[in-house]
């Protein structure tokens, strides 16, 4: 796959993630105990041998840049090609809700032009899966396609995400005959927001877009182009999480507690890479009770944790009861705290005795860097 380059586009619908995206872009949203969303598309690409990857980002880039560094963990710290941080057009303004904004690529045209690869894989940053992209390229070539979209036949959106989906009409041989953003129809398959095409074709599309000032690849370009080009759908069979909102962010992390999903995602075709951090192994105490939990290094657990995900350096005090919750790095849970259906962002302290109860459809979200309870 040395002849494919990757571009990870910037997801603009940050409002769907509420407080989670207050300080970070969608690509940098923490996921699954030690990852960030961008790790999945990035690792899928580098595992397939793609070594020239551009990531479009907004002003909320700091945690993304800290996370990626020079891309060493993904083998992207190289002289030729490597990892490129690309600023979005007009700062990745949230009000502009283009699904896949070609203008963001157009303002970085020189990067695209100076790259040497024959193909481009355009992908979102919110796609949780472990996928062998070499098969997508083989499929693309075998079909002699102009454009291949990776799609899922059985993915179920949450009700609130349905309007965020892109639905495809797929014919028998895999040919795509219609692209409908937001409107599912009978027998439609779902676009996974991964598009493979020739770099020369993308450059040509960009020139067309510039002349028409129509920039939304999925909303405006594909629905029209699909009639004129050979567009094919490659079906991904394995686990898929499309993280489009805080609800699906919660749901797809909870699915990791299914050992089948854990095994497929993390012990599957390729390893999902992330930034390596120091920290001792998780420590469980005499008083702990742990059931169905996904946890990682630096955790100190004295309480009762069930159906939950603990990121790095989470501390759970004695007598605390944590159910159905996701605790991000450096969260400290005091003694006898009760949590159920809660997402707690980084570096929050929940003081002794507090109770926070949400539910599976509407988890409570606690914004980062706070103390809850205690003092008042």
């Amino acid at each position, binding site marked *: 796959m040395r002849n494919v380059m990757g571009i990870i586009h910037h997801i603009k619908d940050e409002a769907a993630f509420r407080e989670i995206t207050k300080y970070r872009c969608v690509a940098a949203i923490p996921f699954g105990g030690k990852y960030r969303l961008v790790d999945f598309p990035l690792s899928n690409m580098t595992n397939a041998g793609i070594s020239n990857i551009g990531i479009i980002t907004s002003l909320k880039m700091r945690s993304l840049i800290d996370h990626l560094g020079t891309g060493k963990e993904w083998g992207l710290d190289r002289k030729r090609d490597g990892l490129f941080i690309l600023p979005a057009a007009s700062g990745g303004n949230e009000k502009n809700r283009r699904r896949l904004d070609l203008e963001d690529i157009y303002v970085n045209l020189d990067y695209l032009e100076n790259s040497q690869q024959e193909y481009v894989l355009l992908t979102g940053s919110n796609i949780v899966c472990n996928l062998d992209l070499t098969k997508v390229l083989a499929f693309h070539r075998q079909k002699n396609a102009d454009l291949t979209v990776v799609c899922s036949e059985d993915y179920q959106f949450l009700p609130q995400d349905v309007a965020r989906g892109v639905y495809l009409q797929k014919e028998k041989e895999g040919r795509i005959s219609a692209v409908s953003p937001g409107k599912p129809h009978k027998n439609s398959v779902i676009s996974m927001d991964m598009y493979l095409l020739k770099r020369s074709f993308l450059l040509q599309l960009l020139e067309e877009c510039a002349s028409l000032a129509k920039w939304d690849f999925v909303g405006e370009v594909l629905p029209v182009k699909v009639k004129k080009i050979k567009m094919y759908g490659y079906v991904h069979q394995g686990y898929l999480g499309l993280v489009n909102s805080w609800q699906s962010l919660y749901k797809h992390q909870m699915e990791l507690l299914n050992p089948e999903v854990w095994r497929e995602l993390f012990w599957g075709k390729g390893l999902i890479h992330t930034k390596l951090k120091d920290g001792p192994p998780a420590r469980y105490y005499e008083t702990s009770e*742990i059931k169905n939990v996904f*946890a990682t*290094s630096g955790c100190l657990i004295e309480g009762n944790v069930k159906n939950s995900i603990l990121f790095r350096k989470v501390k759970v005090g004695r007598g605390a009861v944590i159910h159905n919750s996701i605790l991000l790095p450096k969260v400290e849970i005091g003694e006898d705290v009760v949590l159920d259906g809660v997402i707690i962002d980084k570096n929050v302290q929940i003081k002794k005795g507090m109770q926070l109860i949400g539910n599976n459809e509407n988890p409570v979200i606690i914004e980062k860097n706070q103390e809850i309870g205690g003092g008042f």
Partner: protein
Amino acid sequence: MKKKECIAMLLAGGQGSRLRLLTKNLAKPAVPFGGKYRIIDFSMSNCLNSGIDTVGVLTQYKPQVLNAYIGVGSAWDLQCYSKEGGVTILPPYVSEDGGEWYQGTADSVYQNLKFIEQYNPEYVLIISGDHVYKMDYSLMLQEHKENNADVTISVVEVAWEEASRFGIMNTDKNGFIEEFVEKPAQPKSNLASMGVYIFNWPILKKYLEKDAVDPESEHDFGKNVIPLMLREKLKLYAYAFQGYWRDVGTVESYWEASMDILDDYDFLNYFDDNWNIYSAPLMQPPHYIAPGVNIKRSLISDGCYVNGEIEHSILFPAVFVDKGSLIKDSIIMHGAQIGSGVKIEKAIIGENVVIGKNSVIGGDGITVIEDKQKLKENSQVGRLYRLKRVDKQAEGVSRYLAESP
């Protein structure tokens, strides 16, 4: 090269022959410890945490694992490509006329005098990669300077009944060393040398050169160089270290130190982000703890899948524990696969060992199972069972116990 105040020479060539099965393929400093570390991580992290940015690592016995582990040193901010020094691995060197192993701890440093000279330091810190301890060497250096000593040796109080197993310092009331006795039958003090030395560089150089031409010498710091310095009336100061220190030299002490770490609430620094124990981390997903299991007083590393009961044990990364198993007072190394219904007690299970279901491991002493062994279902291994040697799969199993029952 920039002139340095203090550089460290880390002795990492140890064979660790009393650790036997754990050091069959690697040097003692490379032995995994504490769930995600190797023993050398403690000394290396002490350097970083003490502000020492130049470390020469003297390797010898089975260095491949250690070399690969240290890599470029960036795990400890000791990038070997940095202009400031960083880590340099110093194996015995082959010249046109051949090469030979370092003859002793002092000889290994003597063979690398040129390396030290490049930095022209004021002080040289000699440490070992075999010990488990957290220490701020800069405090020791400060006392060394304040006392205007030629050499400072770090000492730790040991139990009086154990003192005869160590090199014991007898000091005057100001802390200066009057006598150094290796393994005294009748110890006059319980201050044991930790094998941590600070030398004024010109003194070290002079005495290493002296020692090198002494045909009687074994070229060892403790046995030869320090006693010579004492005979020649140099100022040797004993720095009293307060804290946990352990030479992990035998299977028993390895197991005991592991259990000590397990019971010490914060030895691995859960709370202080400014004194980490650094290690070269692995890319592993978080671990998964299944419903319906019990985990008590244990350390669990990333990548583990735990569907059994874990009590007072350490699981290294990527250990798989199947349903209904019980692991107690044990250490399970990287990648071991424990089948369902297995009972393991007071055992050290090597890397990538596979244990068939319903096996029972452990006996009176500490049972060690060598790396990569595969045990059939219903295997029974441990002190009581060892002598039978029933099946071929038991090859390499708990040889340690068979040798010293």
